[in-house]
């Protein structure tokens, strides 16, 4: 493993309407490592991946990919950078009009001039890696949620990217699918020497495969460290999140007016 940073986020701010999603976020993702980004729902974990992939533009600060500001790249350069990134969307985002085979072949057909036979071989290898070589002729509508995500994973690594971003890969999966996905992510990381960014709130699962973790809350990094360091962290916010306690500094409720006053308003009306 190297200690070279692949992604550096420096003092990034991002607002959705009036609400600040990130407020001076600083974060580094090392090349060749699996970095977990955790945090309660609504902390902007998916938004962070979109900002890294330059699908969204920050209001302030910068995101460096290989030391270059990704939001200042011209389109051609940005697209070259994106070919080095794979992304596994929460929904899988498979193309519904293409078969499993064609979905995985899509990036290869778009970005390479490889002969059909080579493309077929690569696609079958990728599908075999996720255990779905036999499902190559199925349409996305015929797949279960877990299978769809595995196909999306095969598609995300079709161009052998340097980095793969996983958006909530374990959400809504049954224990078997979750185990298979964890094993796959681990195997792909090790065999392809990938840099992985796993966004999740499944603490136990994500910490079991991560080299380094960040816990986000209130638009900032609340804690960071190896999974062991985080488990031993004495901060109330971190231990509330790691142990899943309902009471603590991270509020369960979205900011609102006083509860009693709100209810009394119904009586007045």
């Amino acid at each position, binding site marked *: 493993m190297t200690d070279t940073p692949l992604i550096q986020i420096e003092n990034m701010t991002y607002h959705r309407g009036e609400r600040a999603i990130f407020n001076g976020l600083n974060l580094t993702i090392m090349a060749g490592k699996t970095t977990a980004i955790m945090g309660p729902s609504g902390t902007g974990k998916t938004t962070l991946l*979109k900002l890294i*992939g330059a*699908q969204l533009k920050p209001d302030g600060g910068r995101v460096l990919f290989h030391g270059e500001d990704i939001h200042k790249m011209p*389109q051609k350069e940005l*697209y*070259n950078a*994106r*070919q080095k*990134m*794979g*992304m596994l*969307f*929460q*929904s899988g*985002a*498979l*193309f*519904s009009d293409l078969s499993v085979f064609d979905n995985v072949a*899509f*990036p290869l057909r*778009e*970005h390479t001039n490889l002969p059909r036979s080579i493309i077929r071989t690569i696609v079958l290898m990728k599908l075999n890696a996720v255990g779905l070589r036999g499902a190559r002729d199925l349409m996305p509508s015929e797949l279960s949620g877990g299978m769809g995500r595995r196909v*999306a994973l095969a*598609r995300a690594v079709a*161009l052998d990217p340097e980095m793969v971003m996983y958006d909530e890969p374990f959400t809504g999966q049954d224990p078997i699918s979750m185990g298979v996905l964890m094993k796959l992510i681990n195997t792909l990381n090790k065999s392809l020497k990938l840099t992985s960014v796993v966004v999740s709130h499944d603490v136990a699962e994500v910490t079991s495969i991560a080299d380094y973790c960040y816990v986000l809350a209130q638009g900032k990094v609340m804690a960071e460290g190896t999974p062991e360091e985080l488990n031993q962290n004495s901060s109330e916010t971190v231990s509330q999140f790691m142990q899943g306690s309902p009471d603590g500094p991270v509020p369960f409720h979205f900011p609102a007016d006083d509860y009693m006053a709100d209810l009394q308003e119904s009586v007045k009306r």
Partner: protein
Amino acid sequence: MIKLAQSLGTRTLDTMATAGRAGRLLMQSILRLPRFKDVYLTYVQLYSIGVQSLLIIAVSGLFIGMVLGLQGYTTLVKFGAESALGPLVALSIVRELGPVVAALLFAGRAGSALTAEIGLMKATEQLASMEMMAVNPVHRIIAPRFFAGIIAMPLLAAIFSAIAIIGGSLVGVNWLGVDSGGFWSAMQGAVDWENDVINGIIKSGVFGFFVTWIAVFRGYDCVPTSEGISRSTTQTVVHSSLAILALDFLLTTLMFGDIV
């Protein structure tokens, strides 16, 4: 009063911003070097936009031609001018009804389908995943649909007009007994290739351009929720229909205004 001015200002700014985004989408779609793959993608879209609209275009054309033949005959026969039925049917259809009705049907059938398809692709993150695979969705999804719409519309309007004229002759000649030779020869003499047929084709090309532009833009710009897609699909049909009728008046004035 201030609130009214404020809401008027907001709406104006929103409209301007929407027009700007639509213009940018159009420029991104057409201002680039075409690739060989684009031909295949456009061909595939020609099938779903053009060929699959054929049934509604053909059936509507037939009935509109038949109604025109019947209405024209009942009026013309009062003046003993039923021999003018051929020119009446042909000129009404080639100049106006063909391009306009075919475009209205095209907006309802293909335009709404385009908006819903693109909107759903946006809602299911297919467009976002394409972008993350370094494939520009405007080039891969929007442009082929846009070009297919521009190509399909004049062809559909031509088929509509041909079938409508056959419908007119079925009622006029085969049913009501107008002389066949007179019907067709009077039509041949009255319809001018350049002034009538070519102008009709130009009209349908312009309608195709605007209907497809509105449809792909509404899909691409929609709020990616079920309600947002539904609203955008409705907007496509409403805005396209109004644009077709307004443009028809404008084009008719330009093309046939000097006759008056």
